[in-house]
């Protein structure tokens, strides 16, 4: 592992992937290719036909979620021993890339569950916690969510005010969270709360909270610009009782855990953005060839060709960046800086690609009966949630500043 940590920071050989025994190789195994195909078929058959309905009703039909559970889409991050697929990050991202090609609201449910909603328990959970929670999360019977953000603590997550006071063998939580994805559907929440106000970020602890613990309440479900079908809501803790065995990781390490969970989730998020970009390029290319103006396909206009070339180049760059970060995660490397770069770049690429896709489609790109407009709105959130683009730049700069001059 030591050799790897050295090589992520400076060794340019990582670009061609030469390192004794640790070749960077993104060739997908036959099983993963088979899974991608199974997911692609499933989306075409069970999900896409409902795109318009999901968008208008802001609700994914229960039958689609049930079918997704049956397919195994809720167990991507959970080890095989606990009933999941135990996929490596590279493999998980390959599946997420496929999922990115469909309705972003639907895939956000899966993304939040398989990402920030469950990886904390996988990474920091005790054997007992894992044995209790993961099997039901792997089947999707229990959906996961991650609750950090509060009204007064967004980018400055260390400023959370939710308190957790020990009383005997329990903690009593009081406070409020906002914008919590999957809150209306989830059963298991990874919650960050302050156990020692005198210690700042080091006084934050993470807890596993179940929806039916006394004192737990879900508030208003927000109306959003996009990601329809995925729900983000307020949650309230009113003298919420959490048994001490539900402390996740060590007391005082909640903030660090949260950052690690978010960093780990970034590759998956970028993989979904990548899939969406691939879909948009595909549609745009097809449309540019079919749409005739001035007696010829608009593809024959050089500026349209350049739009497409820029989209394709952005996508290619993102693809390699994403798989490299995923691979580094699989090597157990510390990827804080690289993951921040990926989160930043993936979001900006998605935004650019969606913008060009609308432009190539002209008026049709603005019409809601057609999917391009939806992707354009859905792209916007990627620059905000799981750490804004500005915050990613702060993280990158802070990492740069750590290197000796």
């Amino acid at each position, binding site marked *: 592992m030591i050799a790897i940590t050295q090589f992520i920071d400076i060794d340019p050989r990582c670009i061609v992937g030469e390192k004794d025994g640790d070749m960077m190789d993104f060739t997908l195994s*036959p*099983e993963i290719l*088979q*899974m991608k195909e*199974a*997911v692609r*078929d*499933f989306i075409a058959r069970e999900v896409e036909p409902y795109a318009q309905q999901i968008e208008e009703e802001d609700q994914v039909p229960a039958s689609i979620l049930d079918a997704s559970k*049956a*397919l*195994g*889409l809720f*167990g*991507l991050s959970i080890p*095989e021993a606990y*009933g999941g*697929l135990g996929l490596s990050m590279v493999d998980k991202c390959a*599946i997420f890339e496929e999922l990115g090609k469909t309705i972003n609201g639907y895939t956000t449910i899966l993304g939040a569950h398989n990402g920030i909603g469950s990886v904390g328990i996988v990474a920091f959970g005790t054997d007992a916690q894992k044995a209790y929670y993961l099997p039901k999360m792997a089947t999707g019977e229990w959906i996961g969510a991650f609750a950090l953000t509060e009204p007064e603590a967004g980018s400055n997550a260390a400023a959370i005010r939710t308190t957790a006071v020990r009383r005997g063998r329990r903690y009593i939580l009081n406070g409020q969270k906002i914008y919590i994805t999957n809150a209306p559907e989830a059963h298991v929440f990874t919650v960050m709360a302050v156990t020692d106000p005198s210690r700042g970020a080091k006084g934050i602890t993470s807890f596993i909270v179940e929806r039916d613990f006394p004192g737990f309440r879900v508030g208003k479900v927000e109306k959003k610009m996009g990601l329809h079908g995925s729900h983000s809501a307020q949650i309230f803790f009113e003298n919420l009782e959490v048994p001490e065995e539900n402390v996740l990781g060590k007391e005082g390490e909640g903030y660090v855990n949260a950052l690690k969970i978010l960093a780990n989730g970034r590759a998956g998020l970028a993989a979904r953005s990548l899939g969406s970009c691939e879909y948009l390029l595909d549609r745009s290319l097809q449309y540019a060839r079919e749409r005739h103006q001035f007696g010829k396909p608009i593809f024959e206009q050089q500026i349209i060709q350049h739009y497409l070339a820029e989209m394709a180049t952005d996508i290619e760059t993102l693809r390699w960046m994403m798989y490299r970060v995923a691979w580094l995660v699989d090597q157990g490397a510390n990827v804080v800086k690289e993951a921040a770069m990926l989160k930043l770049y993936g979001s900006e690429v998605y935004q650019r690609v969606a913008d060009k896709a609308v432009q190539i489609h002209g008026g049709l790109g603005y019409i809601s009966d057609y999917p391009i407009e939806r992707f354009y709105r859905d792209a916007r959130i990627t620059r905000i949630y799981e750490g804004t683009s500005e915050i990613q730049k702060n993280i990158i700069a802070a990492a740069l500043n750590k290197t000796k001059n």
Partner: protein
Amino acid sequence: MKQVPDTATLIRLQPGAKQIETQGIKWVINPYDEFALEEGLRLKERWGGEVVLVALGPARVEEAIRQGLAMGADRAVHVLTNDAVELDVWLVAQALARVCREEGYDLILTGKQAVDDDQAQVGPLVAVALGLPQVTVVVQLAIDAESRRLRAERELEGAIEVVEAPLPAVVTAQRGLNEPRYPTLPNIMKAKRKEVRTVAWESLGLEAAPLVRIESLSLPPARPAAKILTGDPEEAARELARLLREEAHVI
């Protein structure tokens, strides 16, 4: 189980025109074999036992085998052929029958035909080779494990025929028998660890020459270009009716 080109594939011929061009083809499990496999899986779920998948063909067939294992077959036997062997349905049936004999069986299920060469002979010829009763084109199947008999519905032109036969037997599956399941992601993962026994064609010792040889293959004549009627809707409709009657002779 046979691997066949996806029916949406554009077929091209090899030079010499005795075989199709296999480069760039998307391969799938023969759809009728999927019905057969699904029926096997349901019988296993009902009665217990083991579903063994038997496939014959070149190395690429492994992909279809993995798919079948991911659907739920317990293990597989792959009779591995190479391009040098010239095959016909009779030879294929001999090989499959030999594997079946080695493996043992209560019931042998095949598709009613393969959608590539449409011969519909392999299932029946396996039955002949093994001296078993055969029930073809089955749309419903019930097994009575106590009496070791099967009861099957066969779809005939305008009628359903119900037949009974003792086990073991060969049954060939028709569309409508069931709705094949899709492999789940966990089952794709598990399939990786299931056993695939490879049997080299040469090791079967089937020296005989094929009884039927392909003389030549040719593509059907290209379809004439479509006629598009434009202009005044009323006039176009009248013209369409005239063409349908006078040229196409369909009304």
